[in-house]
């Protein structure tokens, strides 16, 4: 309730008049309330290798599901097996552009795109990206190669600072790959290599790594 009036002695009189008027109507004066709340307070998107986005985000694009599981592989020449000379791996990924801005960020198939974003209305910390790898890659005969033989470097076209998902080596278990701060997009390109430090039987050794992005 606000009373405005003119100055000086006249103000007192105007006040008196206004108070009479207000007294007659304030008993019924109300206010209306509009409640607002976030429909989707937390949103995450994770892409490892090939992913899908309906458009580009800065043009109104939205994330989409993509069930593709990409393969990172290397064929070690017989003469090189166990030599200790690291063997650069390659991928079957075709994901070079970033859905962040359609920029050619990775060099597929040599590199594997790892990226995503985390949206939240609550300041409760960053989202965490973890990778779970088995202890070993295994061939059909049951021979094994420790997953710790596989490591990666991290970069991105045009990037000069630290990578959000930096270089590392698989642990043969669950490990943290990096974090995504609230309301940020993070991405890196990983180039894998096989350490080739052990003499192993011939065959195709397989193992699957599962990446998981978790919100606080």
């Amino acid at each position, binding site marked *: 309730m*606000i009373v405005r009036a003119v100055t000086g002695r006249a103000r007192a009189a105007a006040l008196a008049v206004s108070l009479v008027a207000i007294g007659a109507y304030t008993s019924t004066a109300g206010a209306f309330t*509009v409640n607002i709340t976030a429909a989707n307070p937390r949103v995450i998107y994770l892409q490892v290798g090939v992913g899908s986005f309906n458009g580009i985000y800065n043009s109104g694009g939205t994330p989409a599901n993509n069930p593709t599981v990409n393969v990172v592989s290397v064929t070690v020449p017989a003469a090189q097996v166990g030599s200790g000379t690291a063997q650069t791996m390659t991928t079957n990924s075709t994901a070079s552009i970033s859905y962040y801005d359609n920029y050619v960020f990775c060099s597929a198939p040599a590199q594997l795109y790892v990226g995503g974003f985390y949206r939240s209305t609550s300041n409760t910390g960053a989202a965490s990206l973890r990778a779970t790898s088995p202890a070993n890659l295994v061939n059909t005969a049951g021979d094994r190669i420790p997953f710790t033989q596989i490591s990666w470097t991290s970069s991105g076209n045009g990037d000069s600072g630290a990578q959000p998902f930096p270089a590392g080596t698989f642990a043969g278990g669950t490990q943290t790959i990096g974090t995504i701060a609230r309301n940020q997009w993070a991405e890196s390109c990983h180039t894998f290599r096989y350490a080739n430090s052990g003499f192993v039987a011939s065959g195709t050794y397989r193992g699957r790594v599962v990446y998981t992005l978790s919100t606080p």
Partner: protein
Amino acid sequence: MRASMTASLTLLLASMAAVLPAAAATYRVDDSATLPVESTALLRWRQAAPSRTRDDTLEGATAVAVRLNLAPWVEQTARLYLVLPAQGTAAVRVSWLTQGRLLPGEISPGERVLIYQGPIASPFLEETLTLRIEADGSRLPGTERLQFHFEIDTD
């Protein structure tokens, strides 16, 4: 003595009335019949993913069926205002469209915006406001209440 003082007071009020504008004042309007169409407006991220410009805006829309009791001011010229007192923690911006009886506009907490100016012709004014609400998504952890009311300035 008593008769003398009464006479003086009467005289004073009479002289004041002569110099006053016609009770220029602000009143809160009875809007108790005004109702939002939805109990809660759901806001969605304007950009699905975070951007380099850090656009963390949540946005949504809802409607409000406005019914104002203007009976006390019929046949007066007045200005109607929508008021959103300072409140809450999130930065909020509300814009609205109307069906033509009131003016469209936009408002933030702590502001008072003109929505009508002219003669009050009837005791009740009905209008539908279509609200478009924007809020800072980095500061809206839960439900927030925006409490509006209407005020009228008379000449």
